[in-house]
């Protein structure tokens, strides 16, 4: 039952993009008589400006994150936090992924791939990891890109709200998986 529902969703997902790429111009041209080619080109023009505007924000953020990852600070945190987390039943194997997730998408995906390889996709460790990966975002990157694209420098409470959501997502992943799959 569960498998088939997920299957239907995932097969359907393959058609979403083609459907959008075809359906929106169809509606525009056939139903509303919009000059779809001309309007498309008009809209596409903005892509360049926005991408270029993001650059300084992304440089600032990624340099700080890159230094942080290379410094071994995550390993130090790992050693410091591990005993505390054992108390609350948080599996130490998943800690590095949890710490990496808000910082780097490719980095955390690499860690997830590593967990799957080491423990197998059927292991609780891998399932917790995949759930963590799916239920949180690369908060720092998203904030830099989104605020950067409009030149907003004072982001007020956006980072706190995002990190709080990440924290809850990570702990939910651990406990929900332990409850469902252990």
């Amino acid at each position: 039952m569960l498998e088939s529902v997920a299957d239907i969703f995932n097969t359907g997902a393959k058609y979403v993009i083609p459907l959008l790429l075809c359906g929106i111009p169809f509606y525009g041209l056939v139903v509303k008589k919009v000059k779809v080619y001309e309007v498309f080109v008009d809209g596409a023009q903005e892509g360049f400006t926005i991408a270029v505007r993001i650059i300084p924000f992304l440089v600032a953020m990624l340099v700080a994150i890159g230094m942080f990852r290379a410094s071994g600070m995550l390993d130090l945190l790992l050693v410091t936090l591990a005993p505390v987390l054992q108390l609350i039943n948080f599996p130490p194997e998943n800690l590095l992924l949890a710490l990496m997730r808000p910082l780097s998408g490719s980095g955390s995906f690499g860690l997830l791939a590593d967990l799957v390889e080491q423990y197998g996709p059927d292991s609780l460790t891998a399932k917790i990891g995949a759930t963590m990966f799916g239920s949180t975002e690369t908060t720092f990157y998203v904030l830099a890109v989104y605020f950067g694209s409009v030149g907003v420098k004072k982001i007020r409470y956006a980072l706190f709200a995002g990190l709080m959501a990440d924290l809850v997502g990570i702990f939910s992943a651990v406990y929900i998986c332990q409850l469902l799959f252990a």
Partner: protein
Amino acid sequence: MLNYIWFAIILLSVIAGTVTGKIDAVTEAAIASAETAVELSIGLIGIMALWLGIMKIAEESGLVDLIAKVVKPITLKLFPDVPPDHPAIGSIVLNMSANILGLGNAATPLGLKAMQELQEINPNKDTATDAMCMFLAINTSSVQLLLPATVVGLMGTSSSQVFLSTILATGLSTTTGIIAAKVLAKMKRFSLPSPAQE
């Protein structure tokens, strides 16, 4: 706020790099990351152009307004400062839909479009509005319903189990993001406009 966090990350990295003897790697990472940032931004141009083009068609044909109208009861609650007929609402909804479907590539351009439209009604151009913070709180909490193809590839037959646990965890994290944004917006230290903010 970001000033302190940004500096703290760099300072901690240099201290930790010195302690762990990885200071060379820290230097290299700083330079390599700067290059990566530019490559990532430039790499966005194509996909941005594609979706912004399609979005423009959706806008001109009235599709965006239509969608905005349908979800009005929800968006009115989440984004009370944004006029319900404003184009930003349509873009926000499309961005969230793309996220829910796991279409990360389409979600970013749509989200950036939403940010631009929110910026139009922002009186302080360098400061985030409550609507922007709420939008990003939802966004960074990951409103994903479908697992990304990469994760499905990795997890194989376990995917359907993870599909379930992810929906539950995502529900909790997104709810937290929304509540956090609502509560923090009312706090004095984040009030708008505040020239004392760094």
